[in-house]
């Protein structure tokens, strides 16, 4: 029963996207209310299923549960296996909630968004599949099929060459991963579970090639210099909050890949390079922090903030211990909600500001609900001790400091800088003296969006008290 529930959670968004594609726009006005309603109900139902699955799960255990195996496709002895552990399921819940926020943030942008919504549900289906994949083949397949829907979303938002860059960068990464996957299947022709990769005997040279390719394949998803180009260029052109949220969720697949593969059994030659890589991460974090500080655009600041935190999680994952897994999961869950909520309000402000072009400064003075929501979310984002983000990040940073004090100090410094530029941004948005009289006509966030922000805050607060408070 529970196994079927997991399959439903994976494939429900796929059916949702089909319904969205078939839904009609209201009265030919181009407003995609029906599509949004279908998507919201799909997500709510999916979230309910996830909570039911959580309730049946042994949350004390870190083992994979609800394992289902199918004979598949390929005319070989391959089969695909699905299953989840607490980390995966909490991530699935997180991306469902983040997408729900994304779709609700389209409320003021509903025109001609039908296919954006449909593709985002496909993206969710692929992502859920990735989190549930237990064997190498299905992991690779879901790792790849999340790209086309996102490519379409980005392309519909940006009519230039940037979607092409996104496509090529990401496929370059998947080809490297494919090389590693084929090498592993050549060594072990039967089904390979990710958990058992360490059992595969590879000779020295092959081992180095395989692990380098796996490493690089995941790196293309995470914006560490010099692999950052696609995400930074994509973020400059996105006009749609849903696409922004989806695009910025993509690096989690790289983090998840590292988490599933990395601690297993990497050859000494590769593992010895981990500190060098950690230095690259720390340097990129520092760069992003200064970038966020120097740029005035709200989206640029948000982008810098998001990737500083992704790199912090990566440092946590690369630490030579597995005990951080739960902390990373709880923190990532909270982080997903925070950045989605911030994106929702930030895009609303940007859209309202476009009615009378000029600086955003002081805009929150005349939008009380947006001001309240944004202030609360920023306070959580900077590490105010009211959410799971604070507590778990504290543990992750401690471990990074313990592993390498220089990198740890750099990480702390960048977190402080990130907090500073977010506060600076909040201050400028609330600066009463900068407010322009022409902005009196601007609309505040609507009640549904405001309610969602409050719900996010409640979830974050409850998660602070007990991370899995929703398990009954």
């Amino acid at each position: 029963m529970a196994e079927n529930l997991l399959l439903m959670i994976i494939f429900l968004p796929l059916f949702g996207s089909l319904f969205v594609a078939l839904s009609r726009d209201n009265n030919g006005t181009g407003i995609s209310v029906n599509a949004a309603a279908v998507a919201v109900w799909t997500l709510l139902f999916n979230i309910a299923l996830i909570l039911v699955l959580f309730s049946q799960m042994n949350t004390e255990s870190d083992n994979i549960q609800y394992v289902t195996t199918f004979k598949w496709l390929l005319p070989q002895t391959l089969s695909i296996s699905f299953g989840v552990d607490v980390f995966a399921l909490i991530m699935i819940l997180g991306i469902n909630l983040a997408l729900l926020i994304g779709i609700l943030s389209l409320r003021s942008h509903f025109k001609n968004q039908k296919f954006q919504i449909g593709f985002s549900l496909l993206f969710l289906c692929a992502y859920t599949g990735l989190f549930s994949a237990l064997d190498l083949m299905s992991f690779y397949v879901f790792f790849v099929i999340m790209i086309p829907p996102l490519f379409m979303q980005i392309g519909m938002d940006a009519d230039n060459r940037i979607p092409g860059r996104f496509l090529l960068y990401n496929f370059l990464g998947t080809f490297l991963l494919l090389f590693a996957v084929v090498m592993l299947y050549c060594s072990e022709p039967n089904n390979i579970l990710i958990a058992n990769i360490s059992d595969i005997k590879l000779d020295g040279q092959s081992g180095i090639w395989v692990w380098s390719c796996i490493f690089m394949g995941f790196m293309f998803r995470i914006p560490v210099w010099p692999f950052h180009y696609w995400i930074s260029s994509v973020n400059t052109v996105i006009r749609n909050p849903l696409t922004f949220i989806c695009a910025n969720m993509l690096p989690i697949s790289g983090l998840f890949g590292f988490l599933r593969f990395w601690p297993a059994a990497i050859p000494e030659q590769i593992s010895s390079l981990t500190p060098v890589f950690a230095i690259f991460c720390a340097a990129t974090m520092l760069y992003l922090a200064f970038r966020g500080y120097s740029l005035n655009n709200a989206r640029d600041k948000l982008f810098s903030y998001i990737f500083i935190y992704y790199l912090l999680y990566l440092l946590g994952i690369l630490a030579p211990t597995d005990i951080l897994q739960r902390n990373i999961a709880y923190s990532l869950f909270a982080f997903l909600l925070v950045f989605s909520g911030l994106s929702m309000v930030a895009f609303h402000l940007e859209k309202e500001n476009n009615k009378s072009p000029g600086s955003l400064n002081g805009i929150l003075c005349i939008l009380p609900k947006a001001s309240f929501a944004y202030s609360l979310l920023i306070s959580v984002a900077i590490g105010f001790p009211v959410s799971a983000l604070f507590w778990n990040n504290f543990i992750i940073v401690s471990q990074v400091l313990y592993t390498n004090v220089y990198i740890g100090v750099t990480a702390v410094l960048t977190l402080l800088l990130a907090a500073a530029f977010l506060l600076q941004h909040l201050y400028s948005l609330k600066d009463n003296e900068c407010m322009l009289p022409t902005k009196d006509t601007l609309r505040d966030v609507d009640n549904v969006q405001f309610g969602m922000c409050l719900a996010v805050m409640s979830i974050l607060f409850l998660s602070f008290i007990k991370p899995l408070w929703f398990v009954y």
Partner: protein
Amino acid sequence: MEILAGYVNVFFLLAGVLVLSVRRIWSDESAKGYIAVAKLFIVADLLSLIFFYDKNIWPEYMSNDAFSLAVYILTALMMYVWLSLSLKWFTASGLPSCWFCVLALLLLFCFKILVATVNLGIMAAILTAILLLQYMLLRFSQENEEFHNISGKYLINTALCIVLLGVSLYLFAPKNWSLANAFAFIQTLPMPQIFITIGGLLVVLLFMMGIAPLHFGITDIVGPAVLPVAAYFTFVPVMALWTTFIKLNVKVFASLSTRLESFYVCLGIICIIIGAIGANSSRNLRRIFAFMALFNLGILLMVIAPFNYQSVVYVVCGLLFYVLTCLGVYTVFYGFKSQGEYLSTLNTLYGFFKVRPFMALTLFFFLLSVTNVAPLWGFLNLWELLHRIVADKNYLLMIVVFGTALLLLSALFQVSRTIFFTKKSTNFDRGEFSVYLFLALNLLLQMWLMLNAGALSETVNNLLSEMVS
């Protein structure tokens, strides 16, 4: 009675040609009428095949096995769908379709003989006939400015092919024209002479299959040709020609498999390189797709190169998806219509997605498959090829494959950008119901086959057992 059944089995389609000619003489019918008659004869021929499949009048020249029958049925079905789609073009253009239908039935007749024949003489004669009939089919495009250029080239190539076939047959000598004798004869020849002997046959076949560097026989044609003709060259003869290719390699060239393997791999590499570069350098959607298809043919050729049982099964499954995908893509091309004209250049297709989202998304799905994105069929072929490459430790080839696959994705981006991401600049005609129906059926069939790929390969395995053994 048995002999009569055998004759019916072989020549039924020619009766169709006769009926069409008589109707042309006695009544001037609409395009729909002729195509309906042609389709009727195809269905009747398939039924006669089901009833009389074991009635063979010339066992020394023609011998059907389960696989060749399956290939013929598939080719006939493709011909049927192709005729159904072609009707739209004839209705829009107002041209008579009688001669077109006659050519279709004659070509199908040729394919029937081609997949069944076990004699090199008949094979060469049929290949010549197909080349000539295809040239006549090409003449339907004579209103196009480029027609004289391409038809002239095609005619010269056809003449060269006939010469090559003649030389090959002469070197084999008539007593060795049966496949079994030809196999034995090859083994008696010294090495350079073997390749001169088989070269003619092989080159002609590769030319007709559109394998690089002889790909111009297809890629140069599909752009200027009218839509039904371009569609024909892309997917109708594929299965029959590949079956002949497999038959020759398994039954005649088997002793040369090691030497030919490297040759085919080289051709495959040329195919994927030219395919990837060509797809990026063209602005005509049919040509872009032809180059994408060439890339996939290259992959298939490299997979089949060792001609062991497993590789043949893999490629036959791959070909089935290939043909369905080509059919799907050309069905979408029938939806690219504005003011009664079929569009093919990218700059006329801006914003197509905004008005025909289902068609555009289906095209995207097919193109993803052609660009080898997992888990679609193109990926399965790539997967098999990569397995081979890793086993051989041929990492340079792997870099070439990945590099060209990335280039192909760049072409996919160009097409997607035009169709999906730009503003509409053309008033597209209303999509026809039958186009949507064919697309939906094609998608469902492909998905069903993908989900049952294991069962499919097992079926192909059983079908091939007689031929490959």
